[in-house]
């Protein structure tokens, strides 16, 4: 069982909850083959496709700025059958419907592959910034936040969440990580809805940290030391120093400061 399997169910549950709350939900089905995914995309994809910085005046839409709210994460599983391959779910407005707006943004990628294990976790996480390999699309932030700009040019060519989903799926599948199935959920409906997604994101983040910590530990590094004084093996040394300092203060003989002055 992959550590994120239960969260794949939670995200699917989140979509159902949004449906129950009456949110506008659109579902698109992308083809499963890489070739078909690439065909018909309105913009170029790949390392050379990025048009670089998208200036304010070139921006059609801003998604997930700190003011609007953002949540983004990737879930992976070793059981591709848990993933509804090719499904793109959009909760809220599409790109063309929100010109010049600054919308909240949620993006969850769920990927499956028989060979996906903890060892590939970091590489899979970095894939969520693959947006920088799409023409007219600029990913701007990190962590749990994803702040994105879509250019007027790209919007003019017909970029929408369906094509964006396809483009990102193509990038994911083309990567050498062994991803066989990809499902994506985009949320633009409201800050409240994005924050609800963030509740899942925080739990996912906790697991992610543990995987990363264990990965570093396997390489021989402890990246996340315990900073609690009570747990420190050198606590007695610090206690001794404090005792000496206290005694010096009481005696009015702080020799070190006398010498320095």
């Amino acid at each position: 069982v992959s550590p994120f399997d239960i969260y794949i169910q939670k995200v699917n549950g989140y979509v159902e909850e949004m449906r129950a709350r009456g949110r506008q939900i659109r579902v698109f089905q992308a083809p499963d083959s890489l070739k078909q995914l690439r065909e018909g995309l309105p913009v170029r994809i790949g390392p050379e496709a990025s048009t670089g910085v998208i200036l304010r005046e070139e921006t059609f839409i801003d998604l997930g700025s700190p003011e609007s709210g953002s949540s983004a994460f990737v879930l992976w599983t070793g059981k591709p059958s848990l993933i509804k391959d090719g499904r793109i779910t959009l909760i809220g407005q599409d790109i063309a419907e929100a010109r010049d707006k600054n919308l909240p943004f949620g993006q969850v990628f769920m990927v499956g592959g028989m060979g996906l294990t903890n060892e590939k976790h970091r590489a899979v996480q970095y894939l969520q910034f693959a947006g920088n390999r799409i023409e007219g699309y600029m990913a701007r932030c990190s962590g749990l936040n994803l702040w994105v700009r879509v250019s007027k040019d790209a919007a003019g060519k017909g970029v929408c969440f369906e094509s964006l989903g396809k483009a990102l799926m193509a990038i994911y599948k083309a990567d050498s990580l062994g991803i066989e199935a990809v499902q994506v959920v985009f949320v633009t409906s409201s800050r409240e809805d994005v924050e609800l997604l963030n509740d899942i994101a925080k739990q996912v983040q906790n697991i992610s940290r543990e995987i990363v910590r264990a990965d570093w530990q396997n390489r021989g590094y402890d990246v996340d030391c315990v900073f609690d004084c009570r747990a420190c093996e050198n606590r007695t040394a610090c206690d001794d120093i404090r005792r000496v300092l206290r005694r010096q203060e009481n005696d009015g003989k702080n020799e070190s400061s006398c010498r320095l002055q």
Partner: protein
Amino acid sequence: MEQEKIKEGVLPHDSEWNDSDKVFDQLNKDFEAVIAKDILTVTEAVQNGKPLLGFFTQGTPEIFAALDLPRWFAATMQLMALRSEEAPKIIDFSAQLGLTTFMCSYVKAGVFLLQTGSFPTPTMLIGATEPCDGNVALWQMASEYRPWANIPKFLIDIPYGMDKLDIDDARVRYLAEQIKASTSFMEEHCGRKMDIDHLKEVCDESNRARQLWWEFQELRRAVPTPVSFLWGQPVYALNQVLACGKPETTEWMQRLVDATEKRVKERKGIGGVTDKIRLLWYDLTPSWGHKLFPQLEKDFGAVVSMEMLGWMPPLTPIDTSTEEAIYESLAKRYSIGPPMLRQGMASLDTYCNDLVHIVNDFKIDAVILPGHVGHKNTNAVVKICSDVCRETGVPSLFLGCDVYDERYMTANEVYEKIGRFLSATNFA
């Protein structure tokens, strides 16, 4: 400290702006004016016996801006001292006191300024347990400095692991309480009450300026690199040190963003430089950088696209909806933002993730790990950083220099090392 000497190294060294870039010259001049005004404010406070805050930390400039409290930053004065011609003498002073020579030169400058009575006498002092350890030791020395024995002091305690803020509200609340307590401390000793509405205004203004800071950073991702990396420093100084929450800063930032945007649109790089190699200098900028970087630009087309002080981590706006929200978001910004605090008090994974993000976002070709002698935390993780660079597909070079003391490793030696590295990695 003479102001002319201060400017060297602080301001962009490029004098090759073409005619269309007169606006950058003006920005330089306006920044100098802010420094001059700041020095004047401190001088007046000292001369007239007004409340004066000595600040041994980087955090929460919005608070004393809202209190309109004159203050000096130890960090700025230390930096100025190290960029003066007196730097070697200043650095060597601490050894005469018997302090370790392996201490950061920046902290040594603090020791000099303190022990020679060069810091203006404050009426209150605020410090924080922020990196590096030497800095904390400097605070301790200041606390025990006899002439300041009767000056009230407040130490902000910063918890480690602040990169877990998103999942640990207790740490945010703890730091927020510390910041609030430091505000009460300032109120008590300056005789002014904090006007929350004014604090809100300052924070709103600070948010606007930070938004522009972020825009500026995004523009620096452009190829070719539109401006010298040194512009990150006045931006940091204005927003974090000199003039936080002031409309003039927002206006200055707007002009900088507009001018940079114009250069990006025109696909202009740094004047006279063919931008061939984009470097990340993953440490603070050396005080002797003006001897190194122009040469690298000229000979190899190697441009520093980002460095540690100029890089702004994810934008964290201050929520001004309630007083509590203000303090909590100030705590978040404080812990996530300032250089060294982010690198020294978060997990190594954050340090490495930042490296990967900068490499990807700024299309970095090669990473320079300066390994400043005073930065024990970064020196301890050189091997890991090199591994991460290799996994990310960029070559890295470890130097092991002192970014404030050229005698340790000269700019020429660094130039040669980087030159050999660029040749060995087929960039040159």
